[in-house]
């Protein structure tokens, strides 16, 4: 913990430099955190696409506390019904002649309550091949993230690279006690060709993922039934069983590549980005068994456009995301090599699980880019999601199609020395179609599959209120206090969330 904070401090310290007066810090920070930042986000994929970062410098150091609570039926079982988190975070972006430097870091400690049916971290990534017990409980986590990168511009070409490391441990403090250690390494190179109005870029990303799952039952003589889940309530009966300890290692390699293109002038700008990735994760157990392999194939395509309109700027963005998850299962047969020496030998393997997710989003934002004046901005967005899961033999399926729409109205209100920023959001998620077919008559079905299905295909209205107050602390230091509140409502069930953040910009 101390080491992590020291690293965090060093990273933050390195990004601080004096000389930015508070007014320009205020404008640059407001631009960096403006609602239209997400409309042109090539830089998130391509470290060389710094043209899409609207500022020359930005440094932020903050602490955020958040908490949430949901009624039964208004949360995913594996997510828990409530959470609290404290996050210490920093981010920086600096331009220095032909170089750009940027970095992010955070330390997170959080707790999720009443988490059920998973003894692993990153359950969405590793589903459906999770190990779980039927007890569940409070899940705690400590996680840190460090990321840094730089670009260099040589004539028309900007070369960039970004590296990131995420580490963490998550655990439960009552039996059974999982202690899951996660480490993720990223290398993200990119290049961008810029010629006047055109920017064309390529990027790649390699991610190495590892999670060591170690579960212990500390009470002597007590054993817990560990389920090796396979989706739809199916679990492997050959290896599931009562035990007082269990280990599994998930190792993944993810490769991403893609292009970004931008065409723009002072009046308008158009961005396109396409990214494809493949992430292959092996779940390995003792005796050299790798019973599960999960493959995620993903395509993301986005197109955005901004245009001057009525003395304001209209931002439009369309995004399509397709994700295919394939679960491959290997069966093993026991063979005795000599008395007492057993080897699990390969018997058969096949793809048993498939999930196909289509997601299309469209949003439009009308805002004044001049943040030194009072302005009101409006945003409308539509989000369509189509998710189909299949299990092959027995043939089970789940299908959910949802659409949601939301409207946001926000203000930017610069006062003499400080600024008030706020927004109000209201939306509604409507289920268009859904079906579930499975016939596993067991506890997992009753306590996980059906509650999650009910939640995912329920109609929900949601509301969000955000207020942020920026104020000068010294000549080069800007303080921010923000408060967020969210509410979800489905029939008589409610879920709420709050965030309080204090941060400094310099």
């Amino acid at each position, binding site marked *: 913990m101390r080491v992590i904070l020291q690293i965090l401090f060093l990273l933050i310290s390195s990004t601080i430099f004096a000389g930015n007066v508070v007014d320009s810090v205020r404008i640059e920070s407001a631009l960096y955190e403006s609602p239209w930042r997400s409309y042109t986000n090539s830089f998130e994929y391509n470290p060389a696409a710094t043209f899409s970062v609207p500022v020359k410098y930005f440094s932020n150091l903050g602490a955020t506390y958040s908490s949430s609570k949901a009624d039964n039926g208004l949360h995913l079982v594996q997510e828990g019904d409530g959470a609290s988190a404290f996050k210490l975070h920093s981010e920086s972006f600096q331009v220095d002649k032909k170089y750009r430097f940027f970095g992010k870091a955070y330390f997170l400690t959080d707790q999720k309550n009443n988490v059920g049916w998973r003894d692993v971290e990153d359950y969405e990534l590793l589903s459906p091949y999770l190990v779980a017990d039927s007890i569940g409980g409070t899940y705690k986590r400590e996680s840190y993230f460090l990321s840094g990168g730089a670009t260099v511009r040589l004539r028309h070409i900007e070369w960039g690279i970004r590296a990131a490391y995420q580490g963490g441990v998550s655990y439960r403090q009552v039996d059974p006690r999982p202690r899951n250690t996660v480490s993720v390494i990223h290398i993200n190179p990119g290049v961008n060709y810029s010629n006047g109005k*055109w920017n*064309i870029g390529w990027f790649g990303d390699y991610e190495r993922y590892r999670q060591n799952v170690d579960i212990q039952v500390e*009470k*002597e*003589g*007590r*054993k817990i*039934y560990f389920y090796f889940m396979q989706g739809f309530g*199916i679990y*492997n*009966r*050959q*290896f599931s*069983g*009562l035990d007082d300890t269990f280990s599994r290692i998930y190792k993944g390699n993810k490769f991403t590549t*893609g*292009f970004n*293109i931008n*065409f723009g002038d002072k009046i308008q700008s158009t961005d*396109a980005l*396409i990214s*494809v990735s*493949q992430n292959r994760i092996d779940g390995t157990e003792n005796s050299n068994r790798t019973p599960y392999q999960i*493959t995620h*194939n993903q*395509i993301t*395509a986005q197109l955005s456009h901004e245009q001057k309109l009525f003395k304001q700027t209209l931002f439009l963005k369309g995004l399509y995301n*397709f994700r*295919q998850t*394939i679960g*491959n299962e290997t*069966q*093993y*047969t*026991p*063979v*005795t090599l*000599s*008395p*007492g*020496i*057993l080897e*699990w030998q390969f*018997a*058969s*393997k*096949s*793809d*048993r699980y*498939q999930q196909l997710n289509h997601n299309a989003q469209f949003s439009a934002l009308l805002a004044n880019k001049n943040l030194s004046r009072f302005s009101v901005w409006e945003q409308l967005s539509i989000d369509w999601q189509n998710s189909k899961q299949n299990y*092959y*033999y*027995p043939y089970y399926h789940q299908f959910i199609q949802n659409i949601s729409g939301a409207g946001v109205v926000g203000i930017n209100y610069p006062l003499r020395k400080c600024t008030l920023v706020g927004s109000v959001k209201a939306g509604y998620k409507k289920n268009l179609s859904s079906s579930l077919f499975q016939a596993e008559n067991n506890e997992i079905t009753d306590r996980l599959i059906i509650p999650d299905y009910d939640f995912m295909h329920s109609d929900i209205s949601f509301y969000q209120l955000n207020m942020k107050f920026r104020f000068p602390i010294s000549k080069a230091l800007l303080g921010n206090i923000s408060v967020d509140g969210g509410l979800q409502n489905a029939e008589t069930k409610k879920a709420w969330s709050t965030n309080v953040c204090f941060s400094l910009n310099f």
Partner: protein
Amino acid sequence: MKKHSFIKIISLTLIVSLAFSCKLQEVPFSNILIGISLPSDAVSAGKDGYVITLTNIATGRTQIDTTDATGQINLTAEEGVYNLEVTGQKTLTTTVTSGSTQQTYTQQVEIRGLLEKSLVTGQQVELNVELQIAQKGNGFVIQEVYYTGSNTPANGNYYQDQYIEIYNNSDSVLYADGLSVAESNHLNTSAISEYGNYPNDLIVGAIYTIPGDGKTYPVQPGKSVVIASLGINHKTANANSPVDLEKADFEWYDAGKDVDVPEVPNMIRNFCYSNTIWVLHTRGAHAYAIFKAPGNYTDFITQNTVSVLTASGSSVPRVKIPSSLILDAVDLGLGGIIGSKSLSSAIDVSFSYCDASYNGKSVRRKVLKWENGRAILQDTNNSAKDFIPNATPKPWEVE
């Protein structure tokens, strides 16, 4: 020109992306030809009417079919590892010729067989199950095995209150003299059985025998004998113990190493793998059998001692008990799971279990029916059906 290039790049990337989506590796299926082989003394029973249950050990899914006169059936199943169970109710007819007269006897028997953890891969697989006539106990049967032990108030482990109860399931007086309790050498937690070369024997690591001259210890119909690890009131030694065994009929006793309660007669330690005391495995993990050796035990053990290899590769002596001598037996697992069985399907086609060690639970035989105030316990040689798992220990009680 530039806009065309833009569209070309986007189109090319989309085409590559669509091709990127993987084709699934389909679930492979096998055609399984299942055949049965009848024991020589049951050939006349014919091969039709046997119920075949094929169970995938990973998915737990089963397929059930019945044989015709050829004794064969074809099933299609996904590749994997399977258990194959065969059962059939048959009437055997035996004709005895004595001089010029012939007498015909009919006998209702259950014929069964079990093939454990068979690998099914490839397009065509043939499996053959050797069947045996199930031996049903209408004499002594195991009524209860309390092996888990109990937890102490200080959260310690207490195993001294273990016992085995043997019940006279017949309608006549039986004598417990010479009746032995044996523990399988095989650990049921192992994924596979290592004694496949002894299909008609049970390899055991412990044999304790009730003394007597043949008529010393009569057991009335519907009554039982309780064999304790230690014949005391365990409720005073451990408040959490569920049993008082002060009136136990016998103790298994390891002279010089064990605590002896003089009021309770000791069994004879005829054979034991342990150099110290014998304790029932608190997680089950073994089969327990009762049998009577023909003649004296010293000769029986000498004649039936075999060498088996341990995990470390050393050779150790164990005793093989022919299945024909076993009066009753029960295979035990843990929490509804068994790695592999100790007993042949003719003796016990399944297993019973408790959920954990030291939980104060036992496996207890069910009552089939009551006749004139006497309970007849269920004995179909199928412990999953005959026994109540996670039962509350109740020595000398029938309910």
